[in-house]
């Protein structure tokens, strides 16, 4: 070390410095996608460290996830089955989040959608044996979406009328929805005291790929159901609403700048209620498609946190409805394969880490890190 005399010029050993500064120019179009990808890679690495620390084997866990979800046509079909409700709840969250309306209640709206669809058969409104199949499914679809929309309407109305924080009210509605469903499952529609209703007649099931195995032998055993079509159509419709319609313009303007929207004469309260209902209807559709496509009866614990995973999916897809479809498949894989991984909390943990890394990475959309020569400006 050289002692510096006070009179001498300070000698800098490092002539370069790292500087964080706001981005002034638009980023390249591929940059946000790359950033999200990097965030996921970092998240998986962090997840590996935690799995190892908890006494698991991260490499075999990840290999297992990949194999058990994309390893063959059969398991990929199962992945799609898991992805269908995720697509719909992801869309539900995207629509609401685009307006910066925090609907955390997709889980409850999912449950109510399942209730609505089941009620058509169990109340009974229509017989599941004699009604023409497509009429029955259409009625169940409408009932599920209506119940979901109703469950979204309540926090939306409270927000519009009393300025009640929709994050908490929609979340509280989740717990109420589960208790509501449980009442009907245990007290009214139970089959022989078990926590499930009777099985619906095959007439009320959504068509599955395996139903067509007579004409296309490759479809034998594939459980992907018609809900996939619902989800894809919903994604296109939601994309159209958000980016090609006047209503979508209002939604996006309120999300970006509520004051400007108000000055432009857009009713925020009306849109709060409507968007909450649309969001609820999408989540309700997810519940309906799960009941008629997968479970085929009304029972407990039909959701493995689809409503909450939808939040992460929406954020990862940057609220773009078409990207939601792709991202949902990845998370469907995680949920499907995660069931067999020990310890059982790992899929939830990985989801959490992914979301944390993702929002942290957003910083680099707004800021850039530059290495500058010292003294240069």
């Amino acid at each position, binding site marked *: 070390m050289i002692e510096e005399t006070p009179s001498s010029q300070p000698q800098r050993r490092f002539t370069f410095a790292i500087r964080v500064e706001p981005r002034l120019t638009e980023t390249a179009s591929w940059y946000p996608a790359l950033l999200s990808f990097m965030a996921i890679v970092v998240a998986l690495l962090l997840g590996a460290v*935690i799995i190892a620390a*908890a006494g698991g084997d991260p490499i075999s866990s990840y290999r297992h996830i990949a194999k058990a979800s994309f390893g063959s046509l059969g398991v990929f079909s199962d992945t799609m089955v898991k992805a269908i409700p995720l697509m719909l709840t992801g869309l539900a969250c995207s629509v609401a989040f685009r307006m910066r309306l925090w609907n955390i209640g997709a889980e409850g709206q999912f449950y109510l959608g399942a209730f609505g669809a089941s009620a058509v058969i169990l109340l009974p409104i229509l017989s599941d044996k004699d009604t023409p199949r497509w009429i029955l499914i259409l009625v169940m679809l409408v009932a599920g979406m209506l119940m979901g929309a109703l469950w979204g309407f309540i926090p939306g109305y409270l927000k519009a009328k009393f300025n009640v924080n929709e994050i908490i009210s929609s979340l509280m509605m989740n717990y*109420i929805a589960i*208790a509501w469903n449980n009442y009907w499952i245990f007290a009214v529609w139970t089959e022989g005291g078990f926590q499930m209703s009777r099985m619906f007649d095959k007439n009320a099931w959504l068509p599955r790929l395996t139903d067509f195995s007579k004409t296309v032998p490759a479809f034998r055993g594939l459980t992907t159901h018609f809900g996939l079509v619902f989800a894809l159509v919903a994604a296109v419709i939601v994309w159209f609403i958000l980016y090609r319609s006047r209503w979508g313009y209002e939604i996006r303007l309120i999300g970006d700048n509520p004051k400007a929207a108000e000055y432009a004469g857009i009713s925020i309260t009306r849109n709060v209620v409507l968007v909450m209902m649309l969001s609820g209807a999408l989540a309700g559709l997810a519940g309906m498609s799960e009941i008629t496509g997968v479970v085929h009866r009304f029972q407990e614990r039909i959701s493995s946190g689809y409503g909450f995973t939808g*939040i*992460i999916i929406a954020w990862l897809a940057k609220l773009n409805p078409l990207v939601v479809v792709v991202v949902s498949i990845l998370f469907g894989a995680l949920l499907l394969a995660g069931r067999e991984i020990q310890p059982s*909390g790992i899929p939830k*943990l990985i989801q*959490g880490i992914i979301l944390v890394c993702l929002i942290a990475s957003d910083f680099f959309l707004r800021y850039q890190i530059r290495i500058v020569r010292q003294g240069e400006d």
Partner: protein
Amino acid sequence: MDPVIILQAGVASGTVLLFATLGEIFAERSGVLNLGLEGMMLIGAMSAFKTAVVTGNPWWGIVVAVVFTGLISQIHAAIAIHLQADQVVSGLALTFLGTGLSLVLGEGLSKAGTISLLPSFSIPLLSQIPILGRIFFSNQSIMVYLGYVLFPLCWYYINYTRPGLHLRAVGEFPAAADALGINVYRLRYLYVLVGGMLAGLAGATISLAISPGWFSEMTTSGQGWIAIGLVIFSQWDPMRAAAGSYIFGALRRLILDIQGPLTIFGYRNPFYYNPYYGFFLQMLPYAFTIVVLVIGSREAIRKRMGSPAALGLPFIRGQRGL
């Protein structure tokens, strides 16, 4: 269905909500919205119980829960304060992370058996007061007594001390606080840390004192979210937070006890004769949270009060005033 017993147990289970609510009040008063309360409470409950199982000493459980949860809360602090991310999403992420982490680290804990819990005792003299003595001072856990000490202290600290003034300044008008030489960033990190530590304490209070054990996500069953609702109801005031917490605690106990007797006020008790009506009772705490939010929000509009002005907004030094 003895009202005194319901209130006594209500005060005990309300203590959990009290700690969580006080912690969130600190964070929000400094301008940082932390929706990760539920996840942090789970981490606290899990780490406290796990430590108590391993060491056999519940006091270590408290220490580990408070320190570990405090550290976890700094993830949210860094993302919200320095990375300026959306605090709603960051808080949700913390809830997911906390839930997942506590499930992974708490694997197998639910079969851990019995452990030694935090002590319960009566306060001499005070417990002799008719009715009130039985409700508040007889055979309560030490955490309940800690709660009695804590909320007036928090109230005094926020409203009548110099650091409390700085806390409020940072949450209401960070640019002005910054101009006066207060380090906005440092204070916000500090109060998110305080919030995290109190959330950890709340979790530890569940698993080591109020309803001992580890029942994965059911350990907290949404109490973190109820606490966030209580913060709004309390208008960010520790005194009102205490009242709200104890009332909610009593409600939880009432729901359990109301299914016991054959008659209520001389009428047949429907909850006894049809236990399935219990599902509607289960909805009550959550429905009541929404009711409480409506009351709080209407009052806020009427009195022209509201959340801390800078709540949820990142502070960027030198770039803009609020």
